[in-house]
C-alpha cells in the first residue's frame, strides 16, 4: 500500500541510530516486512524494516549510513512522508515452538522487536541475543525486556554486556530462531546452530516491489528477490555458508 504518513517523533537512540514513529494506515503490516520511504531530494526510496506497529503508529529504527538516512534524521514531527508499506514476506511466526530464539546484530535488531511482541502475545518464551560493536551503538535491550523476553547483549569490545559476538552465546541444540544482521554474523550463525530458523536478508534495492530485479540472490530454491520473495528466507534455503 502507498500512503502518506505523519511523523510523530524522530529521535536519536544510539550512535548513528534513530527511531522514527509515524501515524498512518498500519493494517496488515507484518513482522519482518519492510517499508519504502520516499525521502525528499533522493531519487530512490529507502527500504527500512518495521520495528513496531501499535494501533495506527509505525515505528522504524534506522542507521544513518548515507544521504537518504541522513536527511531522514533531520526530519521533524509534523512533517509527512510518502511510504510504501506491506512489502516483502516477513517472519513466519507460526514456526516457533514454546521456546524461541531471536538473534540480531546492529541495525538488524529492529525487525526482531516487532517479532518479539507478537511471539510474546502468542505466549512464547522468547530468548533474545543481540550484538553490537560497542556500548554507544547498543539499542533495543529495554524494548525486549519490557516485552518479557530473556535478553543477552554482547559487544565486540566488551564495553557493554558480554565481550564477543552473538554466536559466542549460542549453542546446540537451539530452538527455532529468527535472525537479522550482517552477513558475517549470519554465516557464523549457520555454522554454530544450523539452519533451523528464518533469516532476514538485506541487499541494495531499486524498487522494493519486485519490479526491477535489482536485489535478486541465488538460493537453493533458485533466484529470489530479497524485496519480494524475501526479505525473510528459510535459513536452509540460503547459500551463504562459506
Amino acid at each position, binding site marked *: 500500500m502507498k500512503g502518506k504518513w505523519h511523523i510523530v517523533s524522530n529521535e536519536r537512540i544510539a550512535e548513528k541510530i534513530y527511531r522514527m514513529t509515524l501515524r498512518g494506515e498500519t493494517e496488515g503490516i507484518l513482522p519482518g516486512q519492510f517499508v519504502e520511504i520516499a525521502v525528499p531530494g533522493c*531519487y530512490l526510496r529507502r527500504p527500512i524494516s518495521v520495528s513496531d506497529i501499535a494501533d495506527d503508529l509505525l515505528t522504524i529504527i534506522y542507521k544513518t549510513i548515507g544521504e537518504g538516512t541522513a536527511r531522514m534524521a533531520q526530519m521533524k514531527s509534523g512533517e509527512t512522508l510518502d511510504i510504501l508499506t506491506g512489502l516483502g514476506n516477513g517472519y513466519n511466526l507460526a514456526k516457533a515452538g514454546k521456546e524461541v530464539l531471536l538473534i540480531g546484530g546492529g541495525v538488524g535488531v529492529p525487525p526482531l522487536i516487532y517479532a518479539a511482541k507478537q511471539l510474546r502475545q502468542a505466549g512464547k518464551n522468547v530468548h533474545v541475543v543481540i550484538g553490537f560493536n560497542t556500548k554507544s551503538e547498543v539499542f533495543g535491550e529495554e524494548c525486549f525486556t519490557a516485552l518479557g523476553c530473556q535478553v543477552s547483549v554482547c559487544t565486540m569490545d566488551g564495553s557493554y554486556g558480554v565481550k564477543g559476538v552473538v554466536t559466542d552465546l549460542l549453542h546446540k541444540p537451539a530452538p527455532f530462531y529468527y535472525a537479522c544482521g550482517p552477513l558475517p554474523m549470519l554465516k557464523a550463525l549457520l555454522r554454530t546452530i544450523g539452519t533451523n530458523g528464518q533469516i532476514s536478508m538485506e541487499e541494495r534495492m531499486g524498487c522494493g516491489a519486485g519490479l526491477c530485479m535489482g536485489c535478486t540472490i541465488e538460493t537453493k530454491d533458485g533466484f529470489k528477490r530479497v524485496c519480494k520473495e524475501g526479505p525473510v528466507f528459510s535459513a536452509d534455503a540460503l547459500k551463504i555458508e562459506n
Partner: protein
Amino acid sequence: MKVRLGDIELQNPVIPASGTCGFGQEMSEWFDLNCLGAIATKGTTRDARYGNALPRIAECPAGMLNAIGLQNPGVDEVIAIELPALRKLYRGPIIANVSGFSLEEYAYVSARIDQETDAAIIEVNISCPNVHNGGMAFGTSPEAAAAVTKAVKAVTRKPVYMKLSPNVTDIASIARACVDAGADGLCLINTMLGMRIDIRRRKPVLANTYGGYSGPGVFPVALRMVNQVSKACPGTPLIGCGGVSRAEDVIEMMMAGASAVEIGAANLQNPMACQQIIDELPGVMKELNITHLQDIIGVV
C-alpha cells in the same frame, strides 16, 4: 486519449517499459493494469539468466543506474507461465521484449514469441553485446542493427519495434537502417551507459562497474533523439522512452514525435506511476487545449 501504433490502437499512450514491470504480476498488486495503453514485458532470452552480480542498482541525483544483466526465466517459461498469467490480468496489447547475444538467439526467441497470440508487438532490445563480435552492442552500428531487424522480421509477421540504444554518435542513421531493414516501428531510448564510484571505498558502486542510466536526467536527451529520429524516419511509429515521469512529459515526448510513451524508472520510484500519469493526462490535455493526443504527435 487514444493513439495508434501502426494498426494497433491503444486506449492511451502510456506503457510501462520493459524491465520495470516484470511480467505485470507485481505491478498488478498496485493498480488494475487494464488502465494501461500497453505493457512491455521483461527482456526475454533463449535460456534463463541470473544476470549480473550485486549490487546492480546505483542512485543518481536525477535517476538511477541499473546493471541487472537481463535476469529472466527464459523463453520457454515466459511462454508457458508468464504470458498466460499476464493475459489473465490484462486485456490490452502486450509488447514482448526480446533480447539476444547473437543473431541466432534473436531469431529463435522471436520465432517462439511469434507463435503466441498474446503478444501484439515484438520489441527488440539491441543494446545487448554481440558475443560473436567482441561484445560490441548490436545497437551501436547501422549494419548490426539492420542485421538484427532482418533476422527478426524473417521469423515473424507481428509488428517489430527495434529499441534503440542512445550510446551512439548518430541515432538517426541507426534508426534509418532499422526501418530500411523492415522494422515496423522504433522505440527509443534505452538507458545511457554510466557509472558511479564509492569515493570512500574507491570502487565502482555497481559490481558490473558500468550500468544504464535512466530517470528524469535522461529526458532531454531522449526527447532530442526522438525528435531527430522522427525527422529521419517520417511515417514510422515511434515509442518515446527515457525519463518520462509525469503527464506533461508524455505530452512533450509526443510533440517531439512519439506516438506512444514508455515509462521506466518512474515505476521503480513509485509502482503506481503509470496509473497516476494516465489519471493526470486528461487535465493536462484540457489545460493545453488538446482534444486528441493523435493531433500533437511530432508537431515540433
